[in-house]
């Protein structure tokens, strides 16, 4: 594949993406009276179709077509099971989504961390959640940038350097998120999601066909790589490894603020339902396609030195026409950028809303927004520097980030279901739990032979419960919060959203 063809495709993608981003601008995101809710939440008026595509593009990143395909190449069908457990975990949106939506409407939350701070009656909970999210999500964003670096370098045979790929995706992510906030992110996401699914499915069908069809592909796997069709398979997916990978990812839809923040945005519960079901259909297809890529690469190129090269090698091979290969390459680039820009936007909203505004308590919404816009490129540069470290196994690093974020889950579930939960309990689970995860990853320790992915959640749960029982809860804020959340599906949120008490989070913090 020629370098000129790759650059031409990237430039076309850039022009179309920027065009969509500019067209998405509206008075709620770029007018004179724009506020935090307008810029970061689209004024809570996003429709179901766009939300579904954007949720899909945000969730599925370079990890899928590069990382998951690589994991399938290295570990066989266990990679598919790992992703299906994550997929089932998105059902948490059906349970918690209406609750997030109802309390967000009533109390005016912009970020999930702001919600926790208000629910537990302590701004330190909001600050700790925001900082923990940055700590774990910036490396996650960096993993996506590195994915683009590997992709462009692999497909161009090294003519485009790793660093060039990382720079290109960083600049695109900054532009797409900066132009109109969540509106430009969601509309460019939607375009990118459609592009990703159509292009990747076409290539999967083409490659499988050129390898003799589905039956031939699986027959070859059964004959030459029989272990790849079972677990633990070639060895990567031992039961404890599988458990360590899947537990954090099962809770991804709650623990990752770039997706849980989306639960504040739909215009109605009907829109939220469309978002969820649309995402699930998209996600299932995309997962199967990514796994088929990994299997196809295993059959076509069984001796690759590095599993992350499975996708670039496949795309650059004779099985894929160069024009289609470059289209999919842009699809993967789009997948990475659409995840990174959402993460950057969410983190900037958290830093301005939950950190800056809790320090500068007199800061107006306009000032918070200005700070948020300044923070955006700073986060991008940090992610860029992390990506430059060129850490190799993309999927494992990405999961390490999810392991760190899972420590927020007990405080989120407790917020809705356990009135006895306290701010001290939430803080202990997030701060100490997060430090335990970092210590386990840094030291490489596996207590009782179990990886950090298995330890993170039980440690956080134990800390949350024990410390909560030893401290005094804020029953007033808990009661009002849980009552509002409880009205979500029974009345379509009307009681919650329509009978505002006028109590804002700030009234308590």
């Amino acid at each position, binding site marked *: 594949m020629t370098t000129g063809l790759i650059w031409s495709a990237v430039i076309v993608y850039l022009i179309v993406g920027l065009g969509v981003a500019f067209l998405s601008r509206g008075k709620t995101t770029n007018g004179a009276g724009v506020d935090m809710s307008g810029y970061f939440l689209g004024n809570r008026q996003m429709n179901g179709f766009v939300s579904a595509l954007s949720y899909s593009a945000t969730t599925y990143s370079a990890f899928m077509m590069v990382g998951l395909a690589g994991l399938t190449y290295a570990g066989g069908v266990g990679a598919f099971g790992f992703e299906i457990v994550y997929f089932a975990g998105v059902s948490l949106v059906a349970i918690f989504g209406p609750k997030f939506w109802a309390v967000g409407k009533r109390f005016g939350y912009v970020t999930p961390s702001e919600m926790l701070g208000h629910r537990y009656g302590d701004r330190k909970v909001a600050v700790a959640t925001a900082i923990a999210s940055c700590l774990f999500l910036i490396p996650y964003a960096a993993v996506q940038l590195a994915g683009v670096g590997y992709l462009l370098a692999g497909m161009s045979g090294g003519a485009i350097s790793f660093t060039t790929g990382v720079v290109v995706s960083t600049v695109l992510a900054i532009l797409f998120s900066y132009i109109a906030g969540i509106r430009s992110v969601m509309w460019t996401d939607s375009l990118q999601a459609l592009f990703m699914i159509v292009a990747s499915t076409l290539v999967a069908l083409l490659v499988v066909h050129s390898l003799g069809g589905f039956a031939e592909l*699986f027959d070859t796997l059964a004959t030459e790589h029989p272990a790849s069709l079972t677990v633990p398979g070639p060895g990567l997916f031992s039961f404890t490894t599988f458990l360590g990978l899947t537990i954090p990812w099962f809770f991804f839809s709650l623990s990752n603020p770039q997706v849980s923040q989306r639960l504040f945005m739909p215009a109605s519960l009907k829109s939220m339902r469309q978002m969820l079901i649309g995402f699930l259909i998209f996600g299932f297809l995309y997962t199967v396609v990514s796994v088929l890529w990994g299997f196809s690469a295993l059959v076509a190129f069984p001796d690759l030195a590095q599993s992350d090269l499975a996708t670039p090698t496949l795309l650059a091979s004779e099985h894929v026409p160069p024009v289609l290969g470059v289209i999919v390459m842009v699809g993967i680039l789009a997948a990475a950028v659409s995840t990174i820009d959402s993460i950057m936007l969410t983190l900037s909203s958290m830093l301005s809303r939950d950190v800056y505004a809790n320090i500068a308590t007199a800061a107006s919404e306009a000032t918070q927004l200005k700070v948020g816009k300044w923070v955006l490129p700073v986060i991008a540069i940090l992610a860029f520097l992390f990506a430059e470290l060129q850490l190799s196994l993309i999927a494992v690093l990405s999961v390490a980030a999810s392991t760190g974020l899972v420590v927020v889950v007990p405080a989120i579930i407790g917020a809705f279901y356990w009135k006895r939960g306290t701010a001290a309990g939430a803080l202990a689970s997030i701060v100490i739990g997060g430090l335990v995860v970092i210590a386990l990853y840094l030291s490489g320790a596996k207590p009782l032979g179990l990886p950090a992915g298995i330890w993170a959640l039980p440690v956080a749960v134990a800390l949350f419960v024990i410390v909560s029982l030893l401290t005094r809860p804020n029953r007033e804020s808990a009661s009002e919060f849980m009552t509002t959340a409880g009205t979500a*599906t029974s009345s379509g949120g009307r009681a919650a*959203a329509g009978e505002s008490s006028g109590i*804002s989070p700030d009234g308590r913090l």
Partner: protein
Amino acid sequence: MSARGWIWGVWILVLSCYVVPYGLLGQVHAWYGSFLFWCVVGVLVIVANIMITRTFQTGESPDAEPRGDELPTQRRRRR
């Protein structure tokens, strides 16, 4: 079946994702082993979510009318 029943169905599906491939299908080296099983689980998860969310109200939220871009609570929340 109620939404609660379907939610329990999802938890059972998740549990089966560990038990069945690592237990019953551990020696089935073919497409109709773990690959097919996880495919079926994926489809059933979609069905379960359609059923869990069927009670979601269809109306727009009460404050969805064109407006000055702010909720009542937000107007009071200038910091």
